[in-house]
């Protein structure tokens, strides 16, 4: 066993994901946290420590967002910290929660992720302009969409992948989202719709991209002793992994995210997983763009390099396929309140493994699932392996 205590998830909650919600970030955090506690059958006074995950302060427009969100996350008079690793925060926050409990220091930890991107006006994309190197990149006029376009183009070029095959991911995830009550962009669309949507920065088109959103998600983590008291259905955190690539994205092999592979190997080793495609029953890789789901399936070693489009075309990644990928509807269908979207993926795997995913439930009694998020400047990956 890793750590002093085995750690289980015993409750999860997510709010609606929408372009513009009336609730403040704190109120969103409160709703998600309250739902997770209710599912766990616990009260706030049962919680010994709190971890919040939230992406750049610039979205909410509140500096020191951790401090700002503390009361909504249930942290009043409790040991508390905020973690932030860009878009990878949503899966990193439960990893931070894991070490709170695995260390033996706390028996319970509430993990809450929140994002309110609508505060940033006229468009949160603007907040991204200062993430680039001020000397070498900003003077060129960098924007986030086109660095992803550069990565997507390299990926397509390396493996000779057609845009049609990438578009299938968007079609699948938006359709899966039709069964998700919190979803922002659920729809029945076709590959043609994606290919005919507005070109933003070739090869990225409007329907290749997830939306900006407001939302929150939460999970309750407990030690094995507490898990036995509060539930018959614990879902164990059996693997954790995280890794960062070079700060200089111009120095990376953009066609393959090897830092995702390193994070995945770390998590799989801990979970004793030797053959990921065989041993993993359901996956939620990070899909802010349709090509990223494919990129991340490969980095998570769920298939060989360049093979993810083929699996998608053959229906393997559909909800009723051999390896369901993003049964939640993913960021493309459910929405992308950055850190909350990552934690939503952990919640989805939790519900899938407990057989509680309703219309989204994947068949075959899944026992092992993986969720992954990706962030900073295309360089950070966080991976969690859950088992029941």
């Amino acid at each position, binding site marked *: 066993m890793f750590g002093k205590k085995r750690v289980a998830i015993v409750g999860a909650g997510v709010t609606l994901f929408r372009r513009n919600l009336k609730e403040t970030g704190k109120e969103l955090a409160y709703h998600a946290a309250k739902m997770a506690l209710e599912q766990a059958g616990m009260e706030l006074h049962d919680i010994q420590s709190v971890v919040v995950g939230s992406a750049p302060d610039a979205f909410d427009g509140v500096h020191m967002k951790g401090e700002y969100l503390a009361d909504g996350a249930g942290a009043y008079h409790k040991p508390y910290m905020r973690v932030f690793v860009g878009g990878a925060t949503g899966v990193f926050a439960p990893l931070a929660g894991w070490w709170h409990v695995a260390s033996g220091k706390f028996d319970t930890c509430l993990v809450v992720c929140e994002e309110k991107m609508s505060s940033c006006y006229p*468009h949160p994309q603007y907040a991204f302009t200062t993430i680039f190197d001020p*000397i*070498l990149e900003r003077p060129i006029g960098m*924007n986030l969409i*086109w660095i992803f376009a550069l*990565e997507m183009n390299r990926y397509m070029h390396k493996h000779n992948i057609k845009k049609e095959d990438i578009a299938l991911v968007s079609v699948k995830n938006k359709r899966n989202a039709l069964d998700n009550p919190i979803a922002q962009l659920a729809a029945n669309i076709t590959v043609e719709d994606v290919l005919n949507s507005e070109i933003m*920065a070739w090869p990225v088109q409007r329907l290749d991209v997830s939306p900006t959103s407001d939302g929150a998600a939460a999970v309750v983590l407990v030690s094995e002793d507490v898990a036995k008291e509060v539930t018959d259905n614990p879902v164990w955190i059996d693997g954790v992994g995280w890794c960062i690539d070079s700060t200089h994205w*111009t120095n990376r092999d953009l066609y393959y995210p090897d830092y995702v592979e390193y994070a995945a190997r770390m998590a799989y080793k801990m979970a004793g997983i030797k053959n990921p495609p065989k041993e993993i029953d359901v996956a939620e890789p990070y899909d802010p763009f349709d090509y990223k789901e494919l990129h991340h399936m490969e980095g998570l070693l769920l298939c060989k390099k360049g093979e993810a489009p083929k699996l998608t075309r053959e229906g393997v990644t559909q909800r009723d396929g051999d390896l369901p990928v993003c049964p939640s509807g993913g960021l493309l269908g459910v929405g992308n309140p950055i850190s909350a979207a990552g934690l939503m993926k952990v919640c989805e795997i939790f519900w899938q493994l407990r057989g509680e995913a309703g219309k989204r439930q994947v068949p075959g009694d899944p026992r092992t699932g993986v969720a992954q998020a990706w962030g900073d400047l295309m360089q950070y990956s966080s991976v969690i392996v859950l088992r029941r």
Partner: protein
Amino acid sequence: MSLEKINNPLNARHWIGHMETDYRYTLGVAGERFLKEIKENARIMGAKCPKCSVVFVPPRLYCEKCFTKLEEWVDVGKRGEIYTYTITTIDVDGKKLEKPQIYALIKFEGAHGGLIHRIGETEKVYIGMKVEAVFKPPNERKASINDIAYFKPAER
């Protein structure tokens, strides 16, 4: 360190109304040398790690792999190859651009990394295309990455 001592509160620096916040960034030690070479000599330089035998472009003060301080600089030439590109049609605010703009990641032979820049004098672009830097005239250069006006298709 000195502290500003103010006895008359009216003398305190203050702003009335809207307060603008902006930042001033230093070029850094390696960055200053890199941009000076572009400004004064129209040369694109890399920094070599003797331990890892890697030439980093853009050059840096240290090797991220082994933490050796990098002191050997090499000219990587003004010609490179397009590693990947995008053709943008909208700006940061989502407004339509008058004319699509090509941006590319350009890698240089024998170097690790590369530069991100505009591609000009062509509408045709492909991965693997050879390009070369077009420098602004010396009197217009300001030690900025924009002293390179753009990269154009390289003559054979």
